């Protein structure tokens, strides 16, 4: 029953996001601020993780190829497929659920605790639109981050393969070009956009409706991370089934 209550309240909140909009000039400023905090602020960690995880994927693949019958270009192929299909869109979004999600929950939760949200409501401002809408808009840029993650993941794989001596440069490049399906990239971006919506709204919900003090802000951020990850994983399953199966 409690879960149903939360699901209902979440969708009511989503409806409120799109009614009684904030003035365009103010909203523009808020969107730029959120792009800075949520998107540009995530590029460093995304780039770092993608490069090294891409490297690990290629090393693991190379080390597990023992048969001489398997071509060496499989390292590049496996790295590309792993990074584009799963690592960049799904696991990077789960990592971002920790970084971006906890930032959103704690910033909105702190505003709740310190009565700043009440202050907005008393002024006659739609606080849900003011706080959540700019986050949704800025998270539309998430595919850009995932694109960078894909590029750096494959680059990391290439560097690890080359400098580890697991495969030649030509083999790796041949592998990443082999049987390339452009729809796989489209599939990755479609699910990234869905995850972006989840990343912007579930942490906002937990921050907006939190009760209590500073300790509860921390708890809300943890709960938001757990639920965001769960929803991303479940959505990933259904989207994959729908688009690739």
């Amino acid at each position, binding site marked *: 029953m409690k879960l149903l209550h939360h699901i209902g309240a979440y969708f009511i909140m989503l409806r409120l996001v799109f009614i009684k909009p904030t003035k365009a000039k*103010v909203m523009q400023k808020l969107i730029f601020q959120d792009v800075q905090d949520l998107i540009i602020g995530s590029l460093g960690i995304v780039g770092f993780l993608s490069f090294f995880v891409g490297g690990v994927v290629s090393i693991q693949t190379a080390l597990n190829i023992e048969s001489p019958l398997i071509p060496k270009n499989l390292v590049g192929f496996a790295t590309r497929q792993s990074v584009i299909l799963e690592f960049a869109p799904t696991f990077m979004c789960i990592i971002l659920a920790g970084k971006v999600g906890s930032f959103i929950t704690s910033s909105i939760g702190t505003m709740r605790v*310190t*009565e*700043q949200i009440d*202050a907005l*409501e*008393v002024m*006659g401002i739609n606080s849900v639109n003011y706080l959540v809408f700019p986050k949704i808009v800025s998270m539309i840029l998430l595919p850009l981050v995932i694109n960078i993650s894909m590029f750096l993941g494959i680059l990391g794989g290439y560097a690890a393969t080359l400098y580890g001596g697991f495969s030649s440069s030509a083999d790796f490049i041949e592998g990443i070009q082999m049987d390339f399906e452009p729809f796989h990239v489209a599939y990755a971006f479609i699910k990234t956009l869905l995850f972006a919506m989840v990343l912007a709204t579930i942490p906002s919900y937990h921050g907006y409706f939190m009760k209590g003090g500073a300790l509860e802000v921390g708890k809300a951020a943890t709960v938001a991370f757990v639920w965001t990850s769960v929803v991303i994983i479940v959505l990933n399953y259904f989207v994959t089934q729908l688009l690739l199966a």
Partner: protein
Amino acid sequence: MIELRDIRKSFDGVEVLKGISMTFEPGKTNLIIGQSGSGKTVLLKCLLGLHQPDGGTMLFNNRAFGEMDDDEQRTLRREMGMVFQGSALFDSMTVLENVMFPMQMLTKQSETAIRKAAEEVIERVNLVESNHKLPAELSGGMQKRVAIARAIVMKPKYLFCDEPNSGLDPKTAIVIDNLVREITQENNITTVINSHDMNSVMEIGDTILFLKNGVKAWKGSKELIFKTDNKAICDFVYSSNLMKKVKEMYQ
């Protein structure tokens, strides 16, 4: 003027407000006092529209809040200013930006006009030198003054303050109390202050509503509070040794 008629509010079956009736007049500082849990904050939140009363009528200049549509309620809210207990200033904005914020959001005035209006009220609360500071760089008393400036920048007809001097030293508390009273009188605002501070009561209590367990237990003014023999208010007022001494001296 605000008129309350038989206001009732319950949470999870517990009746917090049990039929409060009261009139708050303009140009006066109207205090709601009472112990913690007496229903002061709930009543204030009902007045602000943050809680919907279960029963009764709230009249703002003879306009019933419950009968207003969304647009009318929004218009009414723009006539309200609120000073929150913790000031509720926006952390990421400077003092000037905090004060300009309601006008930027709710009016179509030019940026220059908004800045001018904000600077005037900041000057009124004596914070000109702190214009470009963030709330975190201000003392508690200064934060309260910014909150007052933000509350009055839209020239409200109604001003609500939730324990405006909690956490302040007695001297700063008096400065805040007097500032609220002066602004109320200058602009003929209907001001409602939630407090349990007896210093405030004695300083600015033009009209006092005493709540006990969600019921109006006494109504009067600072002049009458020492003369009454109402047991509920006497227990509250003379709960401290200081007030007991004051009473002895007064008698």
